[in-house]
């Protein structure tokens, strides 16, 4: 560097020199500047996917710890650990090591529970993220590929979760595994072959826990990791979509730069997600396997429910009628095939193909960077609400025995309610959602045309009472607003357009000088103080004919409705 040290602008400090040396070797300055300058939109709903990402990180960390102690073997051993009620009981090594993890490893129970809670959060946040993408139309061109990757991640996360809670080989998970085996067995033609391939022979055999284990810790997480990487790479390449709003177009992103604002917020979210998982892991018991006992094909306990994300399959299995289809030649398609293989197959195929489907139906194949508010696309929103209702009926039916027990309802009545609800509720929800969307759209237009309802009633000289409306922008000769709807939230309260004094900061006592705040407002000419200062009457309709200056004053807040 001796030769260039004299060049102008070259750092003289130690850190600066070190940075120069680094860039000399790795040439990262340009990349780093681009990364730090990258703009991210600032909306809470964009953080849902991040929650999924961060809970995945927590899962990788805690899961790796758990593998240090878990023995994925079905070899029979006799328990001799510190949990007295199970001493002397024969069980599989997998179950024994899970007990050891819970009772004999310092802090093992805490990490086990943390891992389980993080898994529940992982799937939940994936579904929440998926709903955000769906209802705002973020899957439209150019993001169809990322939608497909997302749906694949969703399905894989269900498999991953199932494999994870099955490997302890306790009574509850063993029951689930038996049912999973039945699901595979029910597939026409190849069912028995797949079943024997998975279990290495007849049920349960000695292999299945080891195979599920390697799927759970290597195969599926590997694919998940690769797909998440791809998901993020495509996201960065395509840049974020954003909600319509001031200054936001199809050709830009408005928000915060990555560093420091976005990085700090996102990092904060990581710690919050981790903290919530850790808090739940320590404070809220989950899957106490020592109470279930080791797996025994002859035993089961009532209220055997899978983790919540498999609940929809459990529900569909309970609701589907006893319809076995027999073919000539003594072949049959068993009843479980329809609710557990066919139905989820259809559900996930429809979900995966939805972007293409919508493109075909609406003939909208344009590239979209601006999102839609759910109300502006009533058909999609209602279809989504319909699908969600269908899903929820299935999930609730997955626990219908618990509901029947707790609320003292007939179990058969619960099953029939589920069967009827599954068919009747979705269309009803469709119609209701559609009406709500139209109503909200209407109200947006009404406020744009007639202004915000101020709640101020005025009596006119001839005795008529009118409610004073605050127009949002310029008005025509009839006093009707000329602003067009732009797909962004319309302010509907006076506070959102600066109709109130600025709140003075401070929780127990003001940290700002109230007088100072008023002065500030007067100086900047917004808010009530400014209006009072000018002796402006706020109770006019705002029409120019009545001296209103609708285009002036008021610091608009981001309306949140």
């Amino acid at each position: 560097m001796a030769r260039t040290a004299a060049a102008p602008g070259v750092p003289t400090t130690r850190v600066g020199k070190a940075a120069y040396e680094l860039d000399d070797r790795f040439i990262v300055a340009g990349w780093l500047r681009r990364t730090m300058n990258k703009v991210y939109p600032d909306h809470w709903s964009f953080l849902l996917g991040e929650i999924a990402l961060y809970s995945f990180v927590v899962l990788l960390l805690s899961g790796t710890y758990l593998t240090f102690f878990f023995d994925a073997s079905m070899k029979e051993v006799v328990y001799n650990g510190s949990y007295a009620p199970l001493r002397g009981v024969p069980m599989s090594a997998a179950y024994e090591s899970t007990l050891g993890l819970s009772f004999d490893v310092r802090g093992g129970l805490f990490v086990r529970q943390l891992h389980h809670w993080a898994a529940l959060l992982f799937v939940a946040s994936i579904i929440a993220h998926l709903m955000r993408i769906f209802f705002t139309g973020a899957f439209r061109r150019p993001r169809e590929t990322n939608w497909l990757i997302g749906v694949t991640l969703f399905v894989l996360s269900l498999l991953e979760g199932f494999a994870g809670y099955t490997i302890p080989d306790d009574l509850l998970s063993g029951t689930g595994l038996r049912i999973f085996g039945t699901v595979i067995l029910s597939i026409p033609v190849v069912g028995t072959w797949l079943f024997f391939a998975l279990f290495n022979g007849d049920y349960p055999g000695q292999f299945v826990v080891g195979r599920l284990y390697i799927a759970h810790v290597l195969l599926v997480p590997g694919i998940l990791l690769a797909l998440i990487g791809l998901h993020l790479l495509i996201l960065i390449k395509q840049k974020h979509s954003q909600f319509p709003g001031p200054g936001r177009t199809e050709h830009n992103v408005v928000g915060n730069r990555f560093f420091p604002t976005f990085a700090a917020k996102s990092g904060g979210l990581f710690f919050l997600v981790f903290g919530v998982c850790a808090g739940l892991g320590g404070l809220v018991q989950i899957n106490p396997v020592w109470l279930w006992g080791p797996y025994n094909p002859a035993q089961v306990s009532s209220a055997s429910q899978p983790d919540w994300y498999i609940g929809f399959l459990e529900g569909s299995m309970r609701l589907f009628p006893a319809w076995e289809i027999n073919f000539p030649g003594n072949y049959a398609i068993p009843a479980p095939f329809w609710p557990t293989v066919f139905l989820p197959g259809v559900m996930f195929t429809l979900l995966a193909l939805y972007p293409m489907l919508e493109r075909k139906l609406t003939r909208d194949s344009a590239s979209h960077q601006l999102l839609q508010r759910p109300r502006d696309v009533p058909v999609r929103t209602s279809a989504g609400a319909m699908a969600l209702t269908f899903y929820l009926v299935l999930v609730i039916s997955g626990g219908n025995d618990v509901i029947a027990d707790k609320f003292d309802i007939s179990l058969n009545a619960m099953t029939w309610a589920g069967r009827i609800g599954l068919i009747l509720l979705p269309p009803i929800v469709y119609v209701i959602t559609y009406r709500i969307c139209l109503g909200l759209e209407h109200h947006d237009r009404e406020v744009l045309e007639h202004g915000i309802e101020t709640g101020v009633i005025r009596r006119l000289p001839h005795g008529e009472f009118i409610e004073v409306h605050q127009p949002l922008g310029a008005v025509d000769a009839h006093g009707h607003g000329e602003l067009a709807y732009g797909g962004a939230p319309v302010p509907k309260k006076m506070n959102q357009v600066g109709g109130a004094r600025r709140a003075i900061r401070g929780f127990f006592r003001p940290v700002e000088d109230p007088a100072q705040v008023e002065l500030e407002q007067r100086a900047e000419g917004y808010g009530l103080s400014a209006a009072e200062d000018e002796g402006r009457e706020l109770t006019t309709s705002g029409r120019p004919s009545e001296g209103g200056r609708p285009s002036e004053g008021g610091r608009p807040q981001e309306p949140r409705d």
Partner: protein
Amino acid sequence: MTAHDTRPGSTGGADIPEQVYGGPDDDYTPEQLATLRREDLERLGAKYDGVEVTHVDPGPEPGSPLERRAVRQVGMVLTLAGLLAFAFVVVYVGSGWFLPSWEWAQHPTTWSALYTPLLGLCMGLSLALVGIGLVLFTKKLLPHETAVQDKHDGSHFDRVTIGATLVNTLDRSGLARRKLLIRSFGIMAGGLGLMLIMPLGGLLKNPSRGDPLGTTPWAKGVRLLTAGGVPIRPEDQLPGSMQTVFPQVPNGNTAADAATMLFRLRPEQVAASKPRKGQANFGYGDYVAYSKICTHAGCPVSLYEQQTSRILCPCHQSQFLITEGATPVFGPAVRPLPQLPITVDSEGYFVARSGYIEAVGPTYWNRKRI
């Protein structure tokens, strides 16, 4: 080696910026850049990345009460996070040392019951406070800026040039003309693909050989044992009772499909009995035995409601009527639970007269054929 060495490859390789980098380095000489202020340099860099900061709401004024308060808040939150992290360490390490033991005990002490919750509380709160601290810092102390970044479509220039490069490469390779190469490549790829997945064949087992799905350990003369391994006599059970029995074979009580329910019917149940066709003599006196493995999904059907003579599967709520040959009367199950033919041997203990005459457990594609 010195910097003055003149042998090839031994001189320093520092580039001369203007000649090598291209792009912004052609537009701005180091001398020009040296005259710019830091703020201008940042703006210039952002401009090159298509970013413009359109509005900055500066953070609280330095030294103002607002700033002092925010700094206090963030500082307190982060300090608390650190203290709680230390508390975690103390609980984790100290337990069983200067604190009571954390290990599970038959009669749990307060501490061993509190150990895991305390770990969760400390770590959860500590991490959450770090998160809260970061968010507070962003919201209260950092300037709030609004930045706008341009989005670009794909470059037409790039598309045209890479297209030409690819097509030219294909032309030069001559693959379009040399059909034989394409065909042999196809054969090679197909063969290799097949070859590489072949070892998966090791997973396959013939499910029909020996009919493992259709057989259980039950056979003629096999005694019925209780879960405790005791043979059963007809006087052992009360009318209206049910117990799970297992075949008297090695590991009979853990075999997946052997579990069987032995019922002793009440007189009115016997009177109402309508056995399945050809199975009228499968019972013994007022005793009947049915497979415990549900014909729907293979769960053990366990809940016997003797007032209604129903067996309920707790997994998917199939219900079977034992007075009518265990035919399903509600829920998703299609087939009756198979009945085990039973009798009593010369010593007066229950034995199976034969194995099950049909496959127990869930239905599958070719169940009736094997």
